[in-house]
């Protein structure tokens, strides 16, 4: 089946997989600019009873068809995801437009700035190296993913706050709304395999994990996965300096590999790997294994725990130079200040021998 046929089939048949009340709903498929300016097909099923409709992107579901899944099973899955995020009544629009009402639901999403020129056109965003941080309202989350509304310039205008305030609020919410997960790559992969084993062989998770560990490929224990509890847009966890410090306490200064917009990989710097080799690896994995819409960056980053700074490894030398220059400038400034202070003292001493005529004025004149 071709992708376009799949989209048409979903549009025509999705109502058969939804409850009766959706029989009169309006079904649309709209093309929407998503991450890395990829245009995806968003399915919307609008009903009379609700003014908020979930948009489900169809592209990832087509992969299942390509892997041999039956169309009916995929349609049932889409319908199930749709219903789990469906709200059966109108919501107060101020729940989105009033900052006081949404501030505790704001989260961040980390993406590539250059690859998202079109997407970023109408959105407020902050910059970290060549990455961009955009902000979303987390409407709800289930075991199957999250439902979000991206904050646009229009919404931001109504909030009447600064970008810094928005960013700080999103970081503050991170622990509560999207608690981070930092685990070894071995453990992460074993857990993923265990879920399949538990389902296919009908065994408990503990037993499934043990079986998974025996099947595990040989992955060194020097690589860790940093993401959030839903594994959706989990790369943003690296924005939180408390999390970075916590990781540094465990592994020391580290490299951060932008595995995807959903997670970053952490490799301790003392593992002995060169950043050039790591960068080449990131580029190869991005090209061959990461869907274009999920790529975060082709660069490697590193964290300096002492300075609390995350920066691109290929700019490390430049950064070191800039820091040295700043130090020199500061030193020069201190020297000039010291000289001025000496002159000031000399003038005060000279004046002390004279009559006290307008000393304050003279003092100012010297300075």
């Amino acid at each position, binding site marked *: 089946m071709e992708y376009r046929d799949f989209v048409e089939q979903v549009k025509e048949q999705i109502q058969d997989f939804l409850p009766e009340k959706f029989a009169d709903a309006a079904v649309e498929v709209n093309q929407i600019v998503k991450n890395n300016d990829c245009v995806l097909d968003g399915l919307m099923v609008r009903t009379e009873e609700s*003014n908020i409709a979930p948009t489900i992107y169809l592209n990832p579901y087509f992969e299942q068809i390509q892997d041999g899944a039956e169309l009916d099973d995929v349609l049932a899955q889409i319908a199930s995801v749709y219903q789990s995020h469906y709200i059966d009544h109108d919501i107060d629009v101020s729940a989105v437009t009033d900052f006081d009402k949404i501030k505790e639901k704001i989260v961040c999403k980390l993406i590539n700035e250059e690859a998202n020129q079109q997407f970023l056109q109408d959105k407020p965003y902050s910059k970290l190296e060549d990455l961009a941080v955009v902000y979303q309202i987390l409407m709800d989350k289930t075991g199957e993913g999250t439902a979000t509304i991206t904050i646009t310039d229009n919404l931001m205008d109504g909030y009447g706050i600064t970008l810094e305030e928005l960013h700080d609020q999103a970081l503050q919410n991170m622990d509560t709304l999207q608690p981070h997960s930092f685990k070894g790559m071995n453990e992460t*992969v074993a857990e993923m395999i265990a879920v399949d084993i538990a389902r296919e062989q009908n065994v408990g998770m503990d037993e499934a994990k043990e079986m998974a560990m025996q099947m595990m490929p040989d992955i060194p224990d020097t690589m860790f996965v940093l993401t959030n509890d839903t594994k959706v847009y989990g790369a943003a966890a690296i924005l939180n300096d408390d999390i970075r410090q916590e990781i540094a306490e465990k592994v020391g200064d580290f490299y951060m590999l932008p595995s995807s917009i959903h997670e970053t990989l952490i490799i301790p710097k003392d593992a002995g790997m060169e950043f050039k080799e790591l960068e080449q690896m990131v580029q*190869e994995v991005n090209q061959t294994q990461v869907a274009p819409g999920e790529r975060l960056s082709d660069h490697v980053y590193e964290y300096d725990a002492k300075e609390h700074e995350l920066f691109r490894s290929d700019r490390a030398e430049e950064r070191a130079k800039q820091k040295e220059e700043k130090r020199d400038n500061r030193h020069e400034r201190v020297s000039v200040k010291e000289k001025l202070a000496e002159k000031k003292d000399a003038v005060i001493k000279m004046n002390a021998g004279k009559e006290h005529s307008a000393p304050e004025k003279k003092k100012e004149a010297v300075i």
Partner: protein
Amino acid sequence: MKQLEKEINVTSQRNMMKRYQMYGATVSKLTDKSQNDTKKGEKK
């Protein structure tokens, strides 16, 4: 009343596993290389 849209975001386990496996295999090679280089250095 104004119509609102919320996006449903999901991740693909299959895609995640694919990239983890390639990272795992490559880092494994790099670690071996790094260990061999260290051993060679010690011998010298």
